[in-house]
Each structure stands twice: as structure tokens, then as C-alpha cells.
């Protein structure tokens, strides 16, 4: 398996799939798009959060406690979305041996774990005043906790080997196995009875939320998504440059000695 490398691929394929995998090309392109992505994220998230936390109406039965939603829901969406992107990076690493995919997976996992932690903590803070409990072992909460442990497992596993390539391989397999948890999280509130309510915003139906609450939530979620991408891009750039510095230093030592 390990014998296959990018140079053995036909020229056509190299141009299509590996164009963005060239680390130099990646650094140039990401250097250009990172500042606007970060700026858009800060603007959208600030507008969405300030709107949601201070200006949007309260809820008729939950009153001001409903405002935790503007942090909790974007964090929950991005926790799942982040894991999906981790799985995509892992699949491209295993199937196409995409040189950047391994590094991307390593850098996505801590960001995803942080968003999952925010989701769990804000959910708990919301649950106590509304439901009357910090935590209940219902299907939704348990499956999101499993997602958090999958992220932590990936973070630990990719660093557990002396040979980084073996760590990447093991991490990619773990990430793909964990993908079965994503539909479980999504449909947990429909397949089982839970304390957590079903989704208010679905692809198929109209949202069960007043537009005056939906708009700030959408902005906060969009800002969060750009923020997630900006964090991953910045970490990935740092990882690529670190690799480069290490290679240059090694070359210098070799020629200098």
C-alpha cells in the first residue's frame, strides 16, 4: 500500500486532484483567502450574537434563557459539520493519498472538539434553568458526548505513534468509523424519546421559530462556520510551514556538516 506515491499517478490525474495539494500552492492561496474569511467571520458572528443576545425578542415561555440558543445551536451544527469534514479529509487521505489531507485531519480535530465542548457546556447551562437538570443520559446528549470523545480519541491517536504516517492512518480509520455517529446525533430526537426537543430548523419543513429569532441565529451560525474554516486554515498553514522549516533545517544541518 505504502509504495503508491503521487509521482506514479498519470499526469492528467495529477493536474486535477493534486493541484491544491501542492503545499506551496496551498500556502499562496490560503494566505490570500484567510484574511477575508476571518474578517467575514468576526463581522457576521458579532452582528448575529449582539442581535440575538440583546435585541432579538425573548421567548414566550423560556424568556431570556432562550438566548443561549444563539451560541448553542451554531456550536452544535459545527460540531457535527466539523466531524463530517474530518471524515472527508480522512477518506481523501486513505483513498487518494492527498498530501494535505492528513495534516488537515490533524488540524480539524481540536477545532471540532472545542466547538463540541462549547455545545455541551452551553446545553448544560440551558438545561438546568429550563428542564431542571444539568445533564440527562438521553439519546441526543449521549450521542453528542460520544462525538466529543471521538474527537479526543482522534487527537490522541494521531500523536500516539513514533512514525507520523502510522498515526495519520490510524486516525483516519477512527474518523471514518465514527461517521456512523453523525446520523445517530441528527435523528436521535426522532428515533427515541428524549428530553431534548426535535429540530426547529430542517431541510424539509418550515422553521418552527419566529423570523425575528431566525435571522440572528442564521448570522451567528454563518459567522461560526467562517470562524471554523478560518481557524482550521490558520492551523493548517502553520502546520505546513512547520514542516517546511523542519525540512529546511534538516537540509541545512546535512550540508553544513
Amino acid at each position, binding site marked *: 500500500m505504502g509504495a503508491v506515491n503521487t509521482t506514479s499517478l498519470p499526469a492528467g490525474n495529477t493536474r486535477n486532484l493534486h493541484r491544491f495539494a501542492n503545499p506551496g500552492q496551498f500556502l499562496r492561496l490560503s494566505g490570500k483567502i484567510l484574511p477575508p474569511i476571518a474578517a467575514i467571520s468576526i463581522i457576521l458572528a458579532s452582528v448575529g450574537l449582539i442581535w440575538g443576545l440583546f435585541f432579538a425578542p425573548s421567548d*414566550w415561555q423560556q424568556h431570556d434563557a432562550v438566548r443561549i*440558543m444563539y451560541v448553542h445551536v451554531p456550536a452544535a451544527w459545527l460540531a457535527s459539520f466539523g466531524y463530517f469534514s474530518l471524515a472527508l479529509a480522512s*477518506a481523501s487521505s486513505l483513498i487518494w493519498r492527498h498530501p494535505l489531507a492528513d495534516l488537515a485531519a490533524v488540524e480539524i480535530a481540536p477545532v471540532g472538539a472545542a466547538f463540541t465542548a462549547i455545545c455541551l457546556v452551553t446545553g448544560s447551562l440551558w438545561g438546568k434553568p429550563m428542564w431542571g437538570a444539568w445533564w440527562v443520559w438521553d439519546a441526543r446528549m449521549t450521542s453528542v458526548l460520544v462525538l466529543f470523545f471521538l474527537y479526543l480519541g482522534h487527537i490522541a491517536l494521531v500523536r500516539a505513534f513514533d512514525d507520523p504516517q502510522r498515526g495519520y492512518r490510524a486516525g483516519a480509520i477512527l474518523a471514518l468509523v465514527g461517521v456512523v455517529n453523525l446520523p445517530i446525533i441528527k435523528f436521535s430526537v426522532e428515533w427515541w424519546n428524549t428530553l431534548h426537543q426535535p429540530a426547529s430548523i430542517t431541510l424539509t419543513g418550515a422553521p*418552527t421559530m*419566529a423570523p425575528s*429569532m431566525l435571522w440572528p441565529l442564521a448570522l451567528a451560525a454563518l459567522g461560526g462556520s467562517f470562524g471554523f474554516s478560518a481557524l482550521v486554515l490558520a492551523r493548517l498553514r502553520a502546520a505546513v510551514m512547520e514542516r517546511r522549516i523542519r525540512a529546511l533545517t534538516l537540509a541545512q544541518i546535512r550540508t553544513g556538516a
Partner: protein
Amino acid sequence: MKRKHQRMLLVGGCVLGLSVATILVFQAFRSTGELFVIPSKIAAVAPKNGRAFRLGGMVEQGSLQRLQDGTHPTVSFRVSDGIASETVTYVGILPDLFREGQGVVALGKLASDGSFVAQEVLAKHDENYMPPDMADELKKTGWNPNKGSPPAAALWNAPKVSG
């Protein structure tokens, strides 16, 4: 077949196989994923010999009675799933969201008279979010929060359009 395609089939096959296995496992252990037992399933599902379990359903309209047991606030209400209902007694402070027509999940045991003695009562809330003035509008058009969830959000503006 290129090795790339072999790997694609291998990864795809593994994910597919794992998904099928997971679905089968969850099908087999379906009931263990449930957080609570609904009143009409108590006889079939609830644990016997006085073990604690969670009972869930909606607080029946007009069933809530506030009693006083010495110095302790005590309540009694019926939890219904639309088919059967179960009397619940609870000593303690109820969550803010608790009211008739609200979903609740109570942890407790069956007493010898068949009623449910709760040691913890949690309130559920539904997936509808709306400002207080919109709730007031809906109440004017005949919605009673003690009877159940508000009408679908898509219909919230309907009275204004027709009126």
C-alpha cells in the same frame, strides 16, 4: 482496476458494512435508547419490584393539584400520552416551565396503589420559539397553552392575512 479505486471500494465497503451493523444493533436494542416510558406502556415495559424508572408524557389539562404536606410543597397531576394516563405525586419544587399541557419526564417508582411517586420532575419544551407578543396574538385566536403546542409557525401570520 487502479489501486486508488480498490482503496475507494475498500473504504466505501467498510463504512457501508459498519453502518448496516450499527443500524442492526440499534434495532435490536431499540428500547434501551428510550429515556422514558409513556403511560400506556407502563404495564408492558416498566421495571417491576419497585425499581425506579422515568415516566414521560404531557401534563393533563385540569389535573394539577397543589397540596400541602406539612411544610413541604406537594403536587399531584396526571401524565398522559393521549391513550392512557398515570397519576403522579411529587414533593418538591417544580421547574419553571412546568404547567398543564407541557411535556414532563419524571423519575420515580410505582406505589402499591399503582400511582407514580416521583423524586425528580423535569420539564420538556417543544421546538417552537416565539416572542411573547406573538404568543398573546395566538391566545386571542383561540390557542390554549394548557392544551398543547402552538400551531405550526407557518400559520402564525395567517390570522393577519385573513383579517
